[in-house]
């Protein structure tokens, strides 16, 4: 696999690996694989490895390894990983159930008011496969691409103070699930009843950068059975 990379210091204790390629499912998979490898390799030197769409930030301890050793070492690992990764990604696929209904999704009407039926929205959102491109904003909040053009809408001009846990939402070409209740400005079209962020279990999140995600539409009965709640407490 041939991707140009650069490794630059951005602070005393941080270096940034940049991949000179457009974000894509393949690039996300590559970044996910390399990040995992780095986390496993660099125990005593590294505080954090933070992958994103086309970068990996590494926070390290420069008094334990000099920058003059560390950067060439990272360059070597990245080059070799790219050399050995197969050209076809072997990313894991995770399926998540979503209840698409006005009772849990205040912004469905943004779409229905312009003539789209809920069935169309559900089909457009659940038929394609997404890729986790970045995780952040809040713990476990995954940015998934690529949303069908017909569903793309900008963030709300004024964010909601409170978005219910599990809310499935869209902003521009990305979709996401709010893993916990938080403020947020994305357009809510459904709710996923599964607990995604489990800080007290060994499996903190069911996905990582590069994981493929597919949404499975469910009805109210299954939503409730899986632990979903209808709060209508959005503000």
């Amino acid at each position, binding site marked *: 696999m041939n991707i140009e990379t*650069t490794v*630059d*210091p*951005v*602070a*005393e*204790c*941080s270096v*940034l690996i*940049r991949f000179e390629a457009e*974000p894509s499912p393949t690039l996300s998979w590559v970044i996910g694989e390399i*990040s995992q490898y780095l*986390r496993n390799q660099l125990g005593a030197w*590294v*505080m*954090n*490895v*933070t*992958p*994103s*769409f*086309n*970068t*990996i*930030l590494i*926070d390290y*301890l*420069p*008094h334990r390894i000099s*920058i003059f050793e560390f950067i060439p070492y990272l360059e070597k690992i990245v080059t070799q990983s790219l050399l050995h990764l197969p050209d076809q990604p072997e990313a894991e696929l995770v399926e998540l159930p979503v209840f698409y209904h006005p009772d849990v999704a205040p912004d469905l009407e943004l779409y229905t008011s312009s003539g789209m039926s809920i069935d169309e929205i559900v089909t457009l959102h659940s038929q394609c496969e997404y890729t986790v491109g*970045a*995780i*952040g*904003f*809040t*713990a*476990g*909040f995954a*940015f998934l691409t690529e949303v069908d053009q017909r569903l793309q809408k900008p963030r709300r001009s004024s964010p909601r103070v409170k978005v219910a846990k599990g809310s499935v939402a869209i902003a521009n070409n990305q979709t996401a699930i709010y893993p*916990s209740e*938080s403020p947020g400005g994305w357009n809510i079209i459904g709710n996923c009843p599964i607990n995604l*962020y489990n*800080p*007290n279990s060994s499996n*903190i*999140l069911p996905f*990582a*950068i590069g994981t493929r995600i597919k949404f499975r539409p469910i009805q109210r009965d299954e939503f409730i059975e899986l632990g979903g709640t209808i709060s209508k407490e959005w503000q």
Partner: protein
Amino acid sequence: MNLRSTITVIKPGQQSLLQDFGRFGLAHFGITQGGPVDDYAYSWANHLLGNTINSPTIEITLGQAEFQVNHHCEMAIAGGDLNAKLDGVPLSNWSTFSARQGQVLSFGLPKNGLRSYLAIKGGFEISPELGSCATVTRDGLGGLNQGSKLNVGDELSFSSHLVTKKPTQMTFRYKPDYDLTLELRVIEGYQVNHFSQEQLDNFYAKEFEVSQFIDRMGYRLCGNRIQPPQQEFLSEGIALGAIQIPPNGEPIILLNDRQTIGGYPKLGCVARIDLPRLAQAKPGQKVRFVRGDLLGLQDVWGQWARYFGY
């Protein structure tokens, strides 16, 4: 002998948080580091007691907190001067002190800086969550339970220990004056090339002010604006101390509870050894930026890191 000794929170003040050195290795889940925003003062408080660097302490912001001492113990305070008193008798800052059963430790209004670190010999005994007791409310992690701040009536345990009467103090040479104008050294990042020369000159020439929008996530400055580049950047991992320039041009310097990734243009990062001064700064305080040298700053930080055992 009762091995589980305690102090009780009589009142937590504006914000009292349990903090150890922080929660690391989890940024890829979007879990932030937390930990003391003034790690210099935190490190001294533990160091004066002979504690290891990761010993849980209390970060007391803006004072007006009170604690009941239920068992004899040796403690230390360091950081902002919040008029700490033991049974009404003023305590020396940057120093250990011994407290007897029944005494009340109180913090008043800040005289210098914003936050004080209260450490206890051996550290407070708190069950870690994901490897750390650092309180990050947004992540639901740390503190006594799932990211909770300290509340009235909370009991904090520590191991009983022999109490030395003679206090250990830090030498005055190392005591910062948190109320001085801040001169923050900047390590420029790769995005600096996207800012115009005029805006960069502006950034280093003009004075900023600490705004009222300051918390453990970050400090927003005001008093001057920097025009960000037109170009949009994809979100990427954010290093501690990153200087973000949002569309309104008022720089935000990101601290321990920052989001793990972000997409605003960044000029660079504030040097780690300057961040404690920023984290103790109050609204209205003046801020200037100067170019810093990566290797020199790394060297100074390394000496500090080795001294405290990071």
